[in-house]
């Protein structure tokens, strides 16, 4: 078994997949913890679908759809932040509105583009087994930016997320930070969708974080644990998928869910043991 595991590394697609799993774990581990803490997991769906508009416009103008998706995702992220900040619309509703608007724009531009319509969705469905070198390089860059940004500004990010009003009272540039953060979130989502596909992105953004959250209530630890759980889950998912000869996206998700289940069981056992000891 070990032998054939190693032999897989001869294939570039496999090396790339492992890299993609690592980079997705890092970026989604960090960004996902922030998203989960702020209760805005919904943004993953919102950004994805809003960026659809960007693909449509890019296609219509004959530009690179991926660039279109990236630009538009950041714009719609800024739009979400703006709408929920300036009007009294709640964040999840703002996401819903931008989600619809993006898709409507996408449809209209595809419609206006002469000839057979492109399958815009195909731009959003990547597979971890067909990741390209360029994407990996871009992801590496993004991972570095995200890691540095979150390390450098960890506390201010934490404080703003926890109590925005208080941060404003302390005259911190809350809006600036929120705009930067949501842009990073958008980029993370778009980039990861490109390399692992939309389904896996949502898993990477929520399941390891929820698992980590069972054991720690510290955002920094949550980020670290999520990265680790992400790596373990995705690598074991990839290997399982090889041995069972089934698609790796699904096995990675199953691996995450199994890890979550085990963690939940451990935590429950611990708690009840603790209570029994204290009541004794």
């Amino acid at each position, binding site marked *: 078994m070990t032998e054939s595991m190693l032999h897989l590394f001869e294939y570039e*697609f496999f090396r790339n997949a492992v890299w993609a799993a690592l980079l997705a774990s890092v970026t989604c581990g960090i960004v996902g913890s922030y998203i989960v803490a702020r209760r805005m997991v919904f943004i993953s769906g919102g950004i994805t679908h809003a960026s659809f508009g960007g693909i449509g416009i890019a296609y219509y103008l004959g530009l690179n759809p991926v660039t279109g998706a990236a630009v538009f995702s950041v714009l719609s992220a800024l739009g979400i932040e703006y709408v929920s900040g300036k009007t009294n619309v709640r964040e999840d509703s703002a996401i819903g509105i931008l989600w619809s608007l993006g898709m409507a724009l996408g449809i209209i531009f595809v419609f206006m583009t002469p000839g057979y319509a*492109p399958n815009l*969705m*195909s*731009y959003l469905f990547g597979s971890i*087994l*067909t990741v390209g*070198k360029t994407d990996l390089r871009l992801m590496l860059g993004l991972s570095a930016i995200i890691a540095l940004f979150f390390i450098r500004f960890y506390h201010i990010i934490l404080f703003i997320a926890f109590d925005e009003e208080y941060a404003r009272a302390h005259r911190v540039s809350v809006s600036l930070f929120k705009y930067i953060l949501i842009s990073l979130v958008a980029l993370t989502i778009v980039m990861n969708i490109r390399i692992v596909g939309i389904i896996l992105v949502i898993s990477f953004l929520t399941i390891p974080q929820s698992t980590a959250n069972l054991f720690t209530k510290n955002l920094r630890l949550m980020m670290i644990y999520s990265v680790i759980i992400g790596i373990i889950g995705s690598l074991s998912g990839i290997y399982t998928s090889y041995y069972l000869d089934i698609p790796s996206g699904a096995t990675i998700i199953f691996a995450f869910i199994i890890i979550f289940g085990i963690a939940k069981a451990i935590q429950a056992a611990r708690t009840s043991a603790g209570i029994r000891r204290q009541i004794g």
Partner: protein
Amino acid sequence: QSITSEGEKIITVSTLPQKTIITKISGDKFSVNVLIPEEGNHETYEPTSRQMAETGKSMAYFKLGHLDFEINWLGKLAQNYPGMKIYDTSKDLDLIRGAEVQHGDHVHPGGVDPHIWLSVSAVKIQAGNMLKGLIELDPGNAAYFTANYNRFMVELDSLDAQIRQTIQASGVREFMIYHPSLGYFARDYNLEQIAIEQEGKEPSPRYMSKLITIAREKQIRAIFVSSQFSKQSALSLASQLNARVEEFNPVDADWMENMLDIAGKIAASNRQMP
């Protein structure tokens, strides 16, 4: 305006190539409305009101046969237009399908490869079905349709010969494709379609490693990909195989020209491009 003038007879088909094909037979006797369902674009596919109005006035719907769109939407359309006849152009066709599987108390047939317009031999059968339908709709013009049909059959025979010749001359025995839309084409010309998405399904790592071994063995130089889809995944694989990505449009309106084009691209697919 675009709503057809009084007295004109309308029929509706699913895709653009189908329109080209049926017009060969129907000539100017029918106005042909296309719903243009975009493959895999279901989240966003939407006909316009006008297309729907035309569909409503149609005497008949000539369905391609096994498009997801038709399986899921045609039932609703039929409910809306009880007077509209529905013809299945894939009737009597030797379909590529999965094995039948026994599930406890019932058997269900494997899924059908829907890309039947990308094959000359299959289109011949479809044309026959279309002819039958058109005659039924407009018996008065039966002779006209039959003449058109016969002329079209001759064209198809020569097209078939041309493609066969091109493929044979090239010595190509197999080609690699991302989304397997050329299954019928491959069957017609004794080619092997090596699909990355085997049967339209996401590849597993083991299948991927097999694929790469085979591709190296057979010296694959091109990966075919539909121009409607993102090329990203194909590009990444191509770079690993030292191959190129070859785009083709499975739903080009100029069907005959397109078939030749596809044949040409396949014939050239084992060659290293400069």
